[in-house]
């Protein structure tokens, strides 16, 4: 592998010449990261070093469309519930009881097993003040962790990368899908996106085209690196932080080397690692299957993002939600089994969210309309298992415009995950202080 050698040589070159001088944005992130790993004591303490072997990992699972939380974590003994839902209401035989009052939807056997094993935490009544019922806007609010009357352009995951993962490998965030979710938008965008690892590459029939592409994208060693003054030490700057003032083409060159490096790595892992559990053939199952491979292969990723669509159940909800929740529970259970078999379960946390819950009263078409608060699930063997928060009251007098009121701000859940799982300060990322929920 000719390219391996030249990368190695460049690494050596950079080690000898750049150490002791300020990092330019012409240094590819993965090389810069190597330096910060070498100099971890000196590096800015806010910067997290991702090795792919021992850091904690968060898997964010989006249930797109607005999942009916009330028929997911079901208050099956509540009279208000059955009054509001004469046809959709689930009775004792159709739920998997968690206690005397609430149970999981009957299709969620996988989640019940996780719950019984102490690996599932159910946060009840999660939402935010002044809820918005538009899919578009409410998704944006969850993705950016903004107040409902403020617009943020960057996402909460992107801000985490900006604050804590400067200089990290671009694969620090991985989305299985076709587009980068807004949660990843950042001042220094990071994260890679693919449905199929085979598409995350320079496409060619190999041979001299591929070789020429690699050569054309080699870093030009003539420019700023050599001119950099060598006054400061690497520890004085957040490692690998793109500098301002460089030329645009230098930034692109750096990204080009990152792309080459990470696409080779992703494809090699996907080809090498075997799954150790059976997954449903659904889109979500396939996505989690791929995530498991990438974790098993040691990709230096802190956050994976997967999604499952179809929750916008305005009509004939019973059948479609049954199918979706079954798929969710089965897919996540398979993923947990796979992580356990890999020996990585204690490093991984899965967190679900949906842009809103649904109206308490069913509509005339056997469905439910857009609502407000809903539960979130957190899965892993370090979670604080059980029911967290209070189930919101369903008494008509307690509702706001037909919706239950939230008890837990979703940003408290984010804060809990950031502080207790990713071990970083949540305030700079969320913009203000939200009491971190003790999720683990």
């Amino acid at each position, binding site marked *: 592998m000719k390219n391996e050698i030249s990368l190695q040589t460049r690494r050596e070159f950079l080690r000898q010449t750049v150490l002791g001088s300020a990092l330019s944005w012409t240094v590819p992130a993965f090389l810069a990261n190597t330096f910060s790993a070498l100099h971890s004591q000196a590096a800015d303490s806010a910067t997290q070093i991702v090795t792919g072997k021992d850091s904690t990992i968060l898997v964010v699972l989006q249930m797109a469309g607005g999942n009916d939380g009330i028929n997911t974590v079901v208050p099956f003994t509540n009279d208000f519930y059955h009054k509001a839902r004469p046809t959709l209401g689930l009775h004792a035989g159709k739920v998997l009881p968690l206690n005397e009052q609430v149970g999981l939807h009957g299709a969620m056997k996988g989640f019940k097993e996780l719950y019984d094993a102490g690996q599932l935490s159910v946060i009840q009544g999660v939402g935010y003040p002044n809820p918005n019922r538009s899919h578009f806007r409410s998704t944006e609010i969850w993705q950016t962790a903004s107040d409902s009357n403020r617009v943020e352009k960057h996402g909460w995951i992107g801000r985490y990368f900006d604050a804590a993962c400067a200089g990290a490998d671009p694969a620090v965030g991985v989305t299985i899908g076709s587009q980068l979710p807004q949660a990843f938008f950042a001042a220094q965008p990071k994260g890679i996106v693919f449905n199929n690892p085979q598409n995350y590459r320079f496409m060619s029939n190999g041979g001299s085209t591929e070789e020429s592409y690699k050569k054309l994208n080699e870093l030009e060693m003539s420019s700023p690196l050599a001119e950099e003054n060598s006054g400061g030490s690497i520890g004085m700057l957040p490692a690998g932080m793109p500098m301002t003032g460089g030329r*645009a083409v230098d930034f692109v060159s750096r990204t080009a080397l990152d792309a080459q490096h990470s696409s080779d790595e992703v494809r090699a892992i996907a080809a090498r690692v075997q799954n150790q559990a059976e997954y449903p053939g659904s889109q979500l199952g396939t996505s989690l299957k791929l995530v498991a491979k990438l974790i098993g292969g040691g990709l230096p990723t802190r956050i994976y993002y997967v999604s499952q669509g179809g929750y916008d159940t305005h009509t004939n909800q019973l059948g479609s939600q049954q199918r979706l929740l079954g798929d969710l529970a089965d897919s996540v259970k398979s993923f947990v089994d796979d992580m356990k078999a890999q020996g990585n379960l204690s490093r991984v946390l899965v967190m679900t969210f949906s842009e809103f819950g649904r109206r308490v009263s069913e509509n005339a078409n056997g469905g439910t309309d857009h609502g407000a608060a809903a539960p979130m699930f957190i899965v892993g063997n370090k979670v604080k298992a059980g029911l967290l928060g209070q189930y919101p009251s369903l008494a008509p007098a307690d509702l706001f415009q037909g919706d239950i009121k939230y008890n837990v701000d979703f940003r408290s859940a984010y804060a809990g995950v950031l502080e207790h799982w990713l071990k970083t300060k949540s305030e700079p990322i969320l913009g203000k202080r939200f009491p971190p929920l003790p999720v683990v």
Partner: protein
Amino acid sequence: MLKPLSSDRWNYAAAAHLLNRAGFGGPPAEIQMLADLGLDKAVAFLVDYETIPDPTTNPDWAKPNPEEIVKYRAAIKNGTPEEKKQAQREQQQLFQRRMLELRGWWLQRMMHGPRPFQEKMVLFWHGHFATSIEKVKNPYFMWRQNELFRRLATENWQHLLTEAGKDPAMLIWLDQGQSRKDHPNENFAREVMELFALGEGHYTEHDIAEAARALTGWSMNPEEQKFIFRARIHDEGAKTFLGRTGNFDGDEVIQIIVAQPQAARFITAKLWNYFAGQVPSEELSETLAASFRAHGNNFKPFLREMFRSEEFFHDAVMRNQVKSPVQWLVGSVRVLECQLPPPLISWGMLRQLGQDLFAPPNVKGWDGGVTWITTNTLLTRYNDAQSLVEGTVPPFGAGDLAKKPGGQGGMKLEKAMQRIRLGGVNVEKILTPEERADKHAIVTALERRLFQATLSHDQQQTLRDFLEAKTKMSNADIVTTIRLMMSTPDYQVT
């Protein structure tokens, strides 16, 4: 005062820079034509576009059609669950088709239209006012707003800002249409100051509340699908806004905003960033703002002065801007003198590259600059380059294009994609027989066409080696060379 560029600095590279930034670039003959005109005439050729006839016809559905809206609304409201579902699906598919047509229509204007600078400004205003079909949900309104930007592209700022505020798509996008005196909605009042005209820190929360009161009454007439002022819901009381007190209405609010000294600084800095690719220094920003004010807050004379300035041709400006996805796509097709891919493919490419026209990510629009480039979007550019030059369908499945995962339309798109054939690049059209006979000349000619600049010696050598290794070089090898040139960091900037 901006310094005028001295005439001895006007040459082919400068003409290319002007055409790339004020338009979408072009083949060597077009650049040469501008170079021969001289700076002033070249700028006039682009900026004084009114004299150039534009024969583009509008989509046939681009007119008010309230009956259609009423028809679907009735079916969705009163029908049986089956009829309701049917009507929803029908309307959704109809609107998706129209949006696809609209995207293709606009890209064709950028590509072939006789007024590239006008389209470049329309693209600026679209990014600035950042209105999305995701909320507006009506293709006619999106087209109408696009036409508004075209009509007032280089007009007066107060006029444009007022008209943009009264535009139906904007009335929906920022909820102004729902604002009434007993319950004013602050969304538009906030964003008109924060995002459109002043920037954060140049107004207070109280100013927002007062502006929201003044703006009540700006509403929509659904029968005619256009703006209407409704006196009944307008707050007639006195308001104190940005230090002035009076019974202001919406028009006066806009007038007061645009009269703030900060307003000229804000919009000219954004224009400078769009055309020059940099955030201006404080000093330059003041100069730009002064020029804009001296030109009566009219964009055309201001931009004419900007395009003729030494500052615009500074080393730090030239070839130092990351191409936006639209610039990349339209510019590539223009320099290669090939066909724009069909709307479905163009749309797919732009979505994957991060610039879905008519669907900016949020009210703040696209970040632009280096944020266009991630490892993903860069590899996608390299691979889309292959599709453009070879005429192959790019490697994204139709499923990726369907809006919701598992949503309808995936299969239909898949079938449509299989039927699509793209043109690809014709090397006999863009290289002379003499050039094609000489491997050295091929690289030199393509360099001039694609970059209007030179690559590094190593890169040139790599390309020549690639061709030298072919014992019997074919046109396909030249096509691959073009793709390789487009698969460089250097091609991503302009």
